[in-house]
């Protein structure tokens, strides 16, 4: 172990960096789409309940674990977890807190590079007068590197530049790099978001179709449909959104909080950063994409096409409908906002690795950052060159979805049951600048683990589309001896390809599944590599003790 001289510059800087960690592309793209697909205005009820019973407890648990680890000089989850128990195996669970970040950072930095390119394209007025189909095909060509390998590969160059930018900022440390970026990016992001929300809400009736009205979009987003509350799919979607939006179960919060001294507050900091993320998501995120899209393309189009790629394949066209000046300003604000949301998150993803290698192996900040850059570059290559083959989604599924739930479940069990709630509660409330409601003590011990366990089991064996009726159909099928009816995105089906079987070659050509399984092997290799590094670090510690 070596002493690492890192600290936050100011409390506001820490909160903005932590909020920036949480605020990501999902606040503007995933949340409104999830709400549209899961009961409109009613989605907010399971969303807020999940926030109160799972989000807030996990925020406090992760901040407390981080600060506790920092007391012993630990800045990454393997040894933060290790310090909380005498059982050696927990530090290997902590590997998730580095692995997830490397996996997500690989494809996230690539998306970030799209936003940077599209900010410049918007500024240049590249989308002026372009029909919607052409905007879509422009993006498809931009990311189709596999077949355009001989043409100037701007997407690849932009990725390398964005990654280099991330690495440079990380090499400047917490207060000199990450915090400075957060202090600039977060106010700009909120400003851009507010501007876009105003032009979206005031758009009104455009006359392009019968229901082409931004208020129809808002109405669709907020109209309560109470019957959807009985649907487990809606609850799972809401709980899943809380995971993604707060960046819990990743290890980044632990790392940031590990630089807070034991006597300083974490309870209020966690609330301030968590609710700031909620503001960006519920107030700004919900007021941009859907109202503008419905305003120009109508409700039916949105119901059919709402999704992540709308950001790049549709939004430039929609901004252009405002006229050239607002079109350019809107495009720059939109992609600029996404870039700031992206970079504040990707920087956070780099810090657990930095904390781990600087502290355990005594690497300098610069060396740690450069090696991180090389690792991310290698991990990102398949997501870039085999983008159309499903590799991108594969990375997102395992590192950006499943790993978060597994790690969050492990950490909350460790905190409430192994470390113990007496010590745990003391860690949360120590130095607190607010009164932490006592009801959260039993919630953290019983409710939150149960909540996450239900999410995990439901995701593990999810049937068909996950609707209430699908569970009954799958149980009947199982009882009749016909086996369980797996949803394509259930963990078990994803793991073993049960619905399709393993087909790597078809008609003499490698199938998408081949590329997907190859990328999965790369992820497993990364995880095993990190486990080996943790084992080596552990041995070094024992030898020094």
């Amino acid at each position, binding site marked *: 172990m070596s002493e690492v001289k890192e*600290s*936050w*510059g*100011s*409390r*506001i*800087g*820490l*909160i903005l960096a932590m909020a920036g960690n949480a605020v990501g592309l999902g606040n503007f793209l995933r949340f409104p789409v999830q709400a549209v697909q899961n009961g*409109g*205005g009613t989605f*907010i009820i399971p969303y*807020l309940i999940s926030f109160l019973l799972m989000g807030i407890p996990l925020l406090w648990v992760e901040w407390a674990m981080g600060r506790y680890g920092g007391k012993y000089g630990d800045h990454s989850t393997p040894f933060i977890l290790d310090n909380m128990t005498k059982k050696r195996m927990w530090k290997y669970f902590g590997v998730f807190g580095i692995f997830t970040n490397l996996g997500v950072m690989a494809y996230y930095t690539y998306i970030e590079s799209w936003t940077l390119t599209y900010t410049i394209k918007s500024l240049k007025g590249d989308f002026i007068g372009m029909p919607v189909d052409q905007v879509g095909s422009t993006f498809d060509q931009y990311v189709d590197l596999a077949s355009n390998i001989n043409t100037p590969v701007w997407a690849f160059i932009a990725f390398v530049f964005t990654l280099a930018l991330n690495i440079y900022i990380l090499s400047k440390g917490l*207060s000199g790099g990450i915090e400075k970026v957060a202090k600039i990016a977060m106010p700009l992001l909120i400003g851009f978001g507010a501007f876009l929300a105003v032009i979206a809400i005031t758009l009104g009736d455009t006359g392009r179709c019968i229901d082409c009205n931004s*208020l129809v979009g*808002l*109405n669709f*987003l*907020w*109209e*309560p449909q109470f019957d959807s509350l009985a649907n487990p799919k809606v609850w799972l979607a809401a709980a899943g959104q809380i995971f993604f939006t707060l960046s819990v179960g990743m290890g980044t919060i632990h790392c940031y909080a590990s*630089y*807070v*001294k034991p*006597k*300083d*507050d974490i309870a*209020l*900091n966690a*609330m*301030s950063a968590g*609710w*700031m993320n*909620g*503001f960006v998501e*519920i*107030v700004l995120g*919900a007021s941009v994409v859907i109202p503008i899209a419905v305003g120009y393309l109508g409700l039916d189009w949105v119901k059919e096409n709402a999704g992540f790629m709308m950001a790049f394949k549709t939004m430039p066209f929609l901004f252009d409908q405002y006229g050239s000046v607002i079109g350019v300003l809107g495009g720059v604000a939109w992609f600029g906002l996404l870039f700031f949301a992206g970079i504040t998150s990707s920087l956070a993803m780099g810090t657990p690795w930095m904390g781990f290698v600087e502290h355990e192996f005594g690497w300098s900040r610069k060396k740690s950052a450069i090696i991180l850059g090389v690792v991310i570059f290698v991990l990102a290559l398949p997501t870039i060159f085999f983008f159309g083959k499903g590799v991108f989604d594969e990375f997102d599924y395992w590192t950006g979805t499943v790993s978060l739930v597994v790690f969050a479940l492990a950490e909350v069990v460790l905190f409430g049951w192994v470390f113990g709630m007496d010590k745990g509660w003391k860690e949360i409330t120590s130095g607190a*600048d*607010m009164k932490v409601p006592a009801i959260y003590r039993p919630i953290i011990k019983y409710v939150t683990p149960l909540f996450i366990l239900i999410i995990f089991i439901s995701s593990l064996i999810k049937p068909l589309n996950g609707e209430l009726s699908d569970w009954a159909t799958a149980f009947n099928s199982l009882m009749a001896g016909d086996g369980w009816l797996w949803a394509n995105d259930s963990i078990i089906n994803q793991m073993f390809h049960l619905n399709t079987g393993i087909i790597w070659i078809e008609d003499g050509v490698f199938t998408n599944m081949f590329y997907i399984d190859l990328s999965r092997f790369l992820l497993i290799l990364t995880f095993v590599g990190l486990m080996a590094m943790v084992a080596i670090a552990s041995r070094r510690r024992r030898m020094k003790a």
Partner: protein
Amino acid sequence: MTTSALITMVLVQGTVIFVTAYFFRKVLKAPIRQEPDSYSENDELER
């Protein structure tokens, strides 16, 4: 917009804005701790 959608939106967004502002204000108003604290920018001021 229907009345129920409008009420839901105003109620939810209003609550989120209020709670966010409340916690952020609480951070700004919190008393400064004695050195050494977690933050380096105020180190010079304390000496």
